[in-house]
């Protein structure tokens, strides 16, 4: 006997799903990552079962840290190129994924370039040498906390027009924490070696 299968009425509802979870806005996701990262790092210690709150463990942290936001704990900014990851109360910075030659390979773009314009937190670079993901010419990136507009430090340099930098990040964000730093020949050689540039 042939079994007659009734169509599932919920199939019509599934087809009417207003959101494609595979095509969410990358900007929206990046903003959420940044906010969650900041919440985690600034949550009052008394509410947490541990005493420090430095993010930076495991590859998953890279995802939380799309903006690589750094909170300068104790009100002191991290120096450019610093390897962050301090603990609460020491005045050092916390960073979501500590900068290293290996960590630089986790970023989707990396280049050496000179700042040609700054508009708020958007910075335009004339790309000198692309190590990864920057085709050359000019590129405009969001660089939160690195243009002198943020109250808290992002642990990166205070970018200035005409100055030359090494820049790495994801999506359209330049990361701080050493991923964006004043140009240095030795560091540039490290980036080139790490990224095969």
């Amino acid at each position: 006997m042939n079994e007659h299968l009734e169509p599932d009425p919920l199939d019509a509802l599934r087809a009417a799903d207003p959101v494609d979870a595979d095509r969410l806005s990358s900007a929206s996701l990046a903003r959420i990552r940044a906010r969650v990262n900041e919440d985690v790092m600034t949550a009052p210690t008394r509410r947490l079962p541990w005493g420090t709150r430095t993010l930076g463990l495991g590859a998953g942290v890279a995802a939380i840290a799309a903006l690589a936001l750094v909170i300068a704990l104790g009100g002191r900014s991290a120096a450019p190129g610093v390897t962050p990851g301090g603990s609460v109360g020491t005045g050092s910075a916390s960073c979501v994924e500590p900068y290293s030659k290996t960590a630089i390979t986790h970023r989707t773009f990396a280049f050496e370039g000179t700042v040609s314009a700054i508009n708020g937190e958007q910075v335009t670079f004339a790309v000198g040498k692309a190590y990864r993901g920057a085709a050359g010419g000019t590129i405009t990136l969001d660089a939160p906390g690195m243009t002198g507009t943020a109250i808290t430090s992002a642990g990166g340099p205070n970018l200035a027009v005409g100055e030359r930098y090494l820049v790495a990040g994801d999506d359209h964000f330049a990361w701080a924490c050493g991923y964006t730093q004043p140009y240095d020949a030795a560091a540039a050689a490290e980036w080139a070696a790490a990224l095969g540039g």
Partner: protein
Amino acid sequence: MSAPALVRFEAAFEQHHRAVLAYALRRTGTEADAEDGVAEAFAVAWRRVDRLPDPEAALPWLLAIARRVLANQHRGTERRFLLGLRLHAQPQETTAVHAAETPAVEALSRLRPGDQELLRLLAWDGLSQAEAGIVLGISANAVAIRLHRARHRFAEELEQVKGSDAGRTSSEVEGRMSGRRTHEEHAP
């Protein structure tokens, strides 16, 4: 520092933040509201990280938090809206997220709110019945009973909507299916 807790939180975020954002987008009017809701939900999750389930299985727990956050957010939005009406405030520019006005969405809107949410969790968020029960805070048995009723009601309403659409002009039905409001097509 409780590294395992932090690692578990990071793993849960990494595995589920997209699903939580999709959940929020489906239930809020704007992308901005959805982002606010998701960020707040994970902030709450972080504060309760000692109760965070295994990251693999954390989605229903996270959605249960998001559900409460969005409910609070909705109440706040209503208050602000009413205040805005009193102050004659201009609406802000936002990116709206709306379900297309399909017969299925129309049929869904005719169900009880609790039944609507159960069907959304299953059909849109892809949860199992047990997971939906966690989100809604009801037993698996209660989910099964409610689902039986909701599915039946939904099928009935869907048939009615389709039947009423069949009696409309083709342009009206097309307008509904494309998410356009029919009154716009008859606007002078």
